[in-house]
């Protein structure tokens, strides 16, 4: 509770500084709108449904792409960890492609898929996939052999071994890979949405883009805040509880 109040206080102070800067009129109000203007834009966008639609469009792209990335990436990571041949081939490919900033997939996606949802999904999948593959592979390779030896003596074999021993043992690595994949996907999707207008749906990136076109700074800042809040919520609602569980079980943190 104390920590929560402190955080609230911190953000209140930030708002006050912003308001003070606005009132000092150092910059033109076109470049730096007041917190109230931003709030009223957000209010309007919320009231007429633009905001909700944009959030839904963006989150749908992100979630579908992310889930595809996980569903493909996890088994791929397991396979590369299991077979040397796959490690030398797919593993190396994954390592290389992971170093490629995922926004670099946007031009290729546009040429291949045109201005379609498929292009957006492709960018998100590419952002997620390689991090997940590499983290899963690293995680599996780092499982102490003594775990599988102990499990073998207790009668664990093949699938049981993979699902009840190797995967859980690799979980800390896999979760951090999932988190990294999420961050990459989120960034590349925003870039793609800003670059490309897709007629089937206006996402948050597009709202940001039109804010710039119209020189509507309150819209630009408002949408940026929404994007930050979504990122924070994803972390607090989804990743934090998993990480807390891992820390508690593995004893890797005092918190």
């Amino acid at each position, binding site marked *: 509770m104390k920590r929560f109040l402190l955080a609230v206080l911190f953000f209140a102070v930030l708002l006050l500084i912003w308001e003070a800067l606005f009132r000092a009129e150092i910059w033109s109000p076109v470049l730096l709108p007041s917190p109230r203007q931003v709030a009223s834009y957000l209010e309007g966008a919320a009231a007429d449904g633009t905001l909700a639609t944009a959030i839904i469009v963006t989150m749908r792209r992100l979630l579908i792409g992310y889930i595809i990335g996980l569903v493909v990436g996890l088994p791929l990571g397991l396979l590369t960890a299991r077979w040397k041949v796959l490690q030398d081939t797919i593993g190396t490919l994954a390592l290389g492609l992971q170093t490629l900033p995922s926004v670099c997939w946007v031009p290729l996606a546009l040429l291949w898929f045109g201005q379609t949802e498929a292009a957006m999904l492709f960018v998100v999948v590419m952002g997620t996939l390689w991090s997940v593959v590499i983290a899963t592979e690293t995680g599996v390779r780092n499982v*102490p052999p*003594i*775990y599988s*030896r*102990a*499990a*073998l*003596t*207790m*009668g*664990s074999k093949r699938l*049981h071994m993979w699902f*009840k*021993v190797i995967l*859980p*043992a690799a*979980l800390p690595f896999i979760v951090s890979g999932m988190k990294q994949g999420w961050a990459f996907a989120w960034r590349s999707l925003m870039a793609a949405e800003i670059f490309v207008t897709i007629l089937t749906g206006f996402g948050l990136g597009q709202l940001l883009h039109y804010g710039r076109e119209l020189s509507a700074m309150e819209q630009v800042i408002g949408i940026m805040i929404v994007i930050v809040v979504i990122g924070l919520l994803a972390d607090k609602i989804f990743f934090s509880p998993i990480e807390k569980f891992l820390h*508690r*079980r*593995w*004893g890797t943190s005092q918190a």
Partner: protein
Amino acid sequence: MQRLPRHRSSAAEELEVIAPSKLAIENVSKSFKGASGAILALDRVSLNVAEGEFVCLLGASGCGKSTLLNIIAGLEKPDSGTVQADGKPITAPGRERLVMFQEPALFPWLNVFGNVLFGLKLKPNLTNKDRHEVARYYLELVGLSRFQRANIHELSGGMKQRVSLARALAPNPRVLLMDEPFAALDALTREQLYGDLQRIWKARKKTIVFVTHNVREAACLGDRVIVFSPRPGRIREEFAVGLPRPRDINSVDLAVHSTEITKALKSHSQPEVAIAG
């Protein structure tokens, strides 16, 4: 595959004391590829272990005693020779022979109870309720009932090894293979565990093969102490320890035995190899 009639065994049946195995190891050799060529870890080793016997394999590190244990477990295959349990050759790991390792190989993603349940869940014909009952029994046997829900990292070294022991005992194996399980513990904790292990061995009637480099430990626990020499790993001598149980590691009678065994151990080790203990 032949389908057996469905039979649900109860927790009570599962907890019955079952007959321990006898082990027959004959002419077992095993070599490893090392940096400087092949290393002969075991050189024509033969050993018989009677049903319910407590045998300690004693030797300096590198004498192949752990390798022999792994071969009995079925985790490694000998280059030549045979290993049999109750007349049947050992070809793969199985829950008839469970291993307790030096580092506690407990699973950090499960709590204490989950770890003890792990092997039980792999046993068919038991209801979950029975499995829980069995797990609770063994946790009580090792004195950790209160720590069922604890995470592994919250336990001390001694408690971890108690959980390992409970996990190894839970599927009711006929043989317990212990690979220097107490080597990393402090002396006080170790002494306590010597007492507990002897009590549990008496109650559950397991055949135990116990690997150690600690002479006193071997003399305290074993019915027989088998002395190995390293490079190549060979059995040199064996000592029957006929002291009454439970034995106290600090007793004078035990000291007499361990002095004698130490002498043998030293005489069989190469001069450049110093042996502690």
